[in-house]
């Protein structure tokens, strides 16, 4: 299909201006946003300026193209090149020779200049459209760290990366995906750090994509991941340039997509989903402690309701007596078995969370008030839910929000439900079995050839210093090993600061 389109429009421009205009008009039939501006250069040569409204800088175009060319003095230059050299004050001008090129330049916002008796035209780099300015990313906030985030426009995003990595080793490989949207996608990587086979694999998978349009990087993620049925994200998405840059410097590939602030990072592991950029910006002891807090809360968010259900239904002997008594007395009123209670509460909580995201902000307050009633004291007083269950659900909810990546948190939240049902039927055995099945799945999962649980399984002791703990920066001398060949050392050894050093 793509190929056919290309063949139809691969015709070169003719030297007849009217013919060219006719071709363009027929291609852009019924496109009211395309503007054809006829004018005469220096009073003798007929010419057309063509642009798409709203995609280019009109003031600049008037000042540097239209007014110098319409000036009387332009008459003394005959050829297009002379005009360009002497009259047109635009720094970026490209020759176009075919109507395909014309379409490409028009669609990215470059105004096009076509002249009578010339079979070439000029496209000027005067694209300008309304875009959001660089703002703080809302989904990944930090207390300490850069406050800039990617935006919807690709050019801004690449410049954000380039401003952080000034080395020419940062390579950016463009590609356009989508039959109709022709979305520009850039694969960025560090030459000499990344394993070249990884880049080949990424481009191979990207080239396989043939869909109508790419609206968000999620489309790409879904079409290039390793296991499409897994609930776990196998590609990290981030809004933060500093996260993208640190991944680049570890030898990963960053995929930037035009039209979305979310960049994709591949390969990724489960543990990188549990890390925040801020771990590295604060003192390493605190970073380590917070990592361990997250590990604990991952387990809590996955298992706590199931454990509560299993213990309170089947394994009373495991609870200390006084706790058991208070649990039993609060459960006395409740008409449902614990597993039903847990499911009802967890589903309500998920509904509240979803409603809180989608609703307009003005209604949000109402939802949170009602929500506090539903999963709160009112539910307990009505005798429908026991008080410990409210606490369990609340702790679980908080736990799943401690994960810095929303997508990872939502995967764990979804997996909670089957385990709850297992806990309600088989007790702790069911919980263990559910856990075993999840770990089997995680062990079998790979992201671009990298085992999802590495460096814990398979064990790579050298890489654990950045997973089990956040080792101080002067100890992180080696990069994590992803696949194949890699550039092992990222910094000079023996950088531990010490008053006696450096006399």
């Amino acid at each position, binding site marked *: 299909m793509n190929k056919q389109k290309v063949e139809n429009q691969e015709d070169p421009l003719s030297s007849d201006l009217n013919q060219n205009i006719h071709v363009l008009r027929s291609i852009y039939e019924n496109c009211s946003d395309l503007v054809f501006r006829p004018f005469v250069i220096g009073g003798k040569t007929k010419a057309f300026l063509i642009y798409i409204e709203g995609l280019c800088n009109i003031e600049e175009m008037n000042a540097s193209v239209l007014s110098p060319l319409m000036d009387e003095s332009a008459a003394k230059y005959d050829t297009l090149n002379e005009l360009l050299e002497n009259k047109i004050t635009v720094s970026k001008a490209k020759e176009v020779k075919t109507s395909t090129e014309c379409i490409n330049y028009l669609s990215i916002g470059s105004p096009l200049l076509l002249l009578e008796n010339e079979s070439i035209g000029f496209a000027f780099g005067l694209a300008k459209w309304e875009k959001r300015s660089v703002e703080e990313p809302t989904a990944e906030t930090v207390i300490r760290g850069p406050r800039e985030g990617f935006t919807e426009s690709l050019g801004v995003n690449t410049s954000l990366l380039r401003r952080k990595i000034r080395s020419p080793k940062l390579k950016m490989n463009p590609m356009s995906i989508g039959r109709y949207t022709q979305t520009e996608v850039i694969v960025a990587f560090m030459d000499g750090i990344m394993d070249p086979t990884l880049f080949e694999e990424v481009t191979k998978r990207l080239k396989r994509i043939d869909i109508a349009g790419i609206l968000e990087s999620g489309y790409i993620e879904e079409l290039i991941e390793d296991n499409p049925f897994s609930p776990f994200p196998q590609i990290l998405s981030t809004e933060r340039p500093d996260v993208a840059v640190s991944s680049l410097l570890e030898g990963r590939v960053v995929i930037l997509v035009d039209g979305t602030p979310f960049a994709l990072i591949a390969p990724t592991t489960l543990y990188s989903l549990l890390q925040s950029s801020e771990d590295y910006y604060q003192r390493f002891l605190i970073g380590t402690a917070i990592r361990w807090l997250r590990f604990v809360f991952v387990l809590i968010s996955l298992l706590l309701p199931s454990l509560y259900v299993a213990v309170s239904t089947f394994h009373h002997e495991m609870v*200390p007596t006084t706790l058991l008594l208070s649990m039993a007395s609060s459960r006395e009123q409740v008409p449902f078995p614990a597993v039903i209670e847990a499911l009802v509460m967890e589903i309500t909580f998920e509904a509240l969370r979803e409603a809180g995201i989608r609703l307009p902000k003005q209604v949000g307050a109402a939802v949170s008030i009602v929500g506090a009633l539903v999963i709160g004291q009112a539910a307990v007083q009505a005798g429908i839910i026991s008080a410990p269950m409210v606490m369990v659900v609340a702790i679980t909810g908080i736990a799943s929000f401690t994960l810095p990546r929303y997508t990872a948190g939502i995967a764990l939240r979804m997996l909670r439900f089957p385990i709850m049902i297992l806990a309600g039927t088989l007790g*702790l055995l069911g919980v263990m079995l559910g856990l075993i099945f999840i770990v*089997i799945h995680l*062990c079998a999962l790979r992201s671009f050839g990298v*085992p999802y*649980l590495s460096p814990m*399984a*398979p*064990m790579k002791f050298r890489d654990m210093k950045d997973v089990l703990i956040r080792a101080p920066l002067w100890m992180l001398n080696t990069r994590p090993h992803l696949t194949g060949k890699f550039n092992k050392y990222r910094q000079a050894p023996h950088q531990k600061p010490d008053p006696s050093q450096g006399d």
Partner: protein
Amino acid sequence: MIEKGRISALQMSLLIYANIVSSAILTVPGITYKYAGRDMWLSPIWGSLSGFFVVFIVYQLNKLYPMETLIQYIQHILGQIPGKIVGFFYLFFYLYAGGTALRQYGDFLVGAFFNRTPILIVIASLALASTFAVRAGLEVLARLSDMFVPLMILLWIMIVLLLIPELDVKNMFPIMENGIKPSIMGAVSPAAWYTIFFHISTLFPFLIDRKQGMKWSMFTVLAVLVTLLITNLATLLLFGGITGSFVFPFMSAARYISYADFFENLESVIMAIWIGGTFIKMGLYNYVLVLNTAQWLNLSDYKPLVLPFWMLLTLVGIWTAPNLPELAHSLSVTGPIISHTYFIVIPVILLLIAVLRNRMRQKAGKP
């Protein structure tokens, strides 16, 4: 080769370690106390000799046929037809051993925690989990052991550390009151566990770092020895003369722990170790069984066998014994004999034949 995955020697060690230790720490203290009494902590040391010996024999066989598992080289050593026949007996024994391990797991869980759950559910669910792991391949199995075994070891260490204040050293004296014989008698049953090291014969061809294989295997025997020694010692020092009255002394020991009225009832930790460990154990048994059967039948893939063997293992787990006392009896009486026959006697004979054949071939080649 059917299996394309490669594992490291460390992963092999973890697989074997979990296989032995997960069930041994529960049952070995009780059995050894029955024969060795106060010298029960010595028994794992004597028993480990058979572990070292098995590793040595398997390593020698593997040196002669580096890229093959037992089922394959047995046909080179004994000839095609006798090789297939002996191979079949091995497969049948693997099936029996896997089923018995499942049954032990089921009996323990049903007896200690899930009194009203049908044993079929307990057995079939774990067998299903191991089936999924095996279907995903050897590498995934090895990664699973990477995830579970360190946790198991940590939990075990935690329990032993928490027991320390309760221990009484006087319980182990006098050492060797009746000479060395009781402790050697007690070693017979642990020795059967050590012979499980034989399964490295299936894993050796898939090692990345084969040169390390022998070293790591020997090291693992030592690790198992230390684990069992400490477990036996801890239960003995805690319970003294009444050790024998518990079916699962180490679990009873864990039940004994209580700190601050909160940190108690740690038998659930034992259950977690037991389920996780048995999962790894069944994963390895299942894998060895399925892979070797595929090799015995000259199949190009073992995955079609995985589900049928799930059912077979579950059934054998149910059929293997009518009840727990029968199972315990057969494990302590015939178990050591069978496993020593299959894992030591036959391999030694195989090794001798292989070495003799090589000599004869060399002699025939010389003149």
